[in-house]
């Protein structure tokens, strides 16, 4: 596994204790799994995503990521409606390993309560949690 100091954690993103990232810069929040998660899962062979229009409450399981011989649930960090899913992952799940913040994004969510965004961690807080 990568050392914590070697992780790629962009400054402009927010992070969760389930090792996801969220781009909260627009009206719609883009969500994916971060460099720590993709590294410790290993080669990802399948990504199960919800459908556009599905709604979730914060903390709900919204899909799963299957690395070789292991299925890991993924959890939504904010409540809201899914307004986009990354359809490229159906044929190219490896994008999550190769480009977790760009080509490997998972879903786009319209937040139900923007106050929940305040509960997400910035890079410094996430790193502090990892070093725990």
């Amino acid at each position, binding site marked *: 596994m990568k050392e914590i100091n070697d992780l790629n954690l962009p400054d402009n993103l927010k992070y969760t204790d389930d090792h996801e990232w969220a781009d909260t810069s627009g009206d719609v929040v883009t969500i994916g799994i971060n460099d720590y998660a993709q590294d*410790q899962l290993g*080669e990802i062979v*399948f990504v199960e995503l919800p459908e556009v229009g599905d709604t979730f409450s914060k903390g709900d399981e919204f899909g799963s990521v*299957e690395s*070789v*011989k292991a*299925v890991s649930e993924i959890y939504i960090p904010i409540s809201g409606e899914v307004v986009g899913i990354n359809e490229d992952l159906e044929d190219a799940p490896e994008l999550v390993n190769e480009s977790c913040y760009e080509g490997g994004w998972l879903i786009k969510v319209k937040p139900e309560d923007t106050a929940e965004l305040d509960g997400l961690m910035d890079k410094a807080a996430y790193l502090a949690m990892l070093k725990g």
Partner: protein
Amino acid sequence: MPAGINNLKRSAVFIDLKTMDYGRALSLQAQTVQSKIKDQYIADHIFFVEHPCVFTLGKRGGKENLIVSNDFLTSKQIDIIRTDRGGNITYHGPGQAVLYPIVDLEKNKIGVKDFVHGLEEIMKLTALDFGVKADRDQRNHGLWVGDSKLGSVGISIKKGVSFHGLAMNIFPDLTPFSWINPCGLSNVTMTSIKKERSPYTQKKDPCESTNNFSMAIVKQKFLTHFSSIFNFTIVEKNKSKYNA
């Protein structure tokens, strides 16, 4: 110790469930996972079990790799159970040693790929203890002797806690494996420790003993290797609470 398994002090409870239906063992795993998610101080558990005959499917299925009819399976009184583990179709039955580690990988700082690798290593070392040289293969995870598969791995992770695990063929009747493409691979044959054991080995043959005695040895090997590979202190507890 695979890279990424650090030296944190870890501990787990080990329970020998003896023979237990697949569905019942699955419920037990689910209950244990939920308990651990609710209370992170509940101990990691490692269940050792043999199942009566059953086919299980992975999260993404695998029924297309069943090459006999449902009627045939019904006539043999063998169920097919869909699960949420990784991997494809597989078979469990008497004579196969199964290990289900319910371990908080997040808290123990064990990466998923390292955990899968470590489970394969447990089987590899156990096979070696019985005089059988087995290894990984590029084609598929699990443990192989040449072109024959000796053991399989498939896990799920919920909130950082693992369940499902490994299955290693010690002395099962291998016939039911011929009714599927194991793990979704065609032209794969399965093997067992009993089948592979060299007649020239100096070690006492566990397969010549009673089944219970043989599985007792395998259990001890799994426990020892799990402990050393993942750096766990393991305490074996009585199964009575878990069979209630």
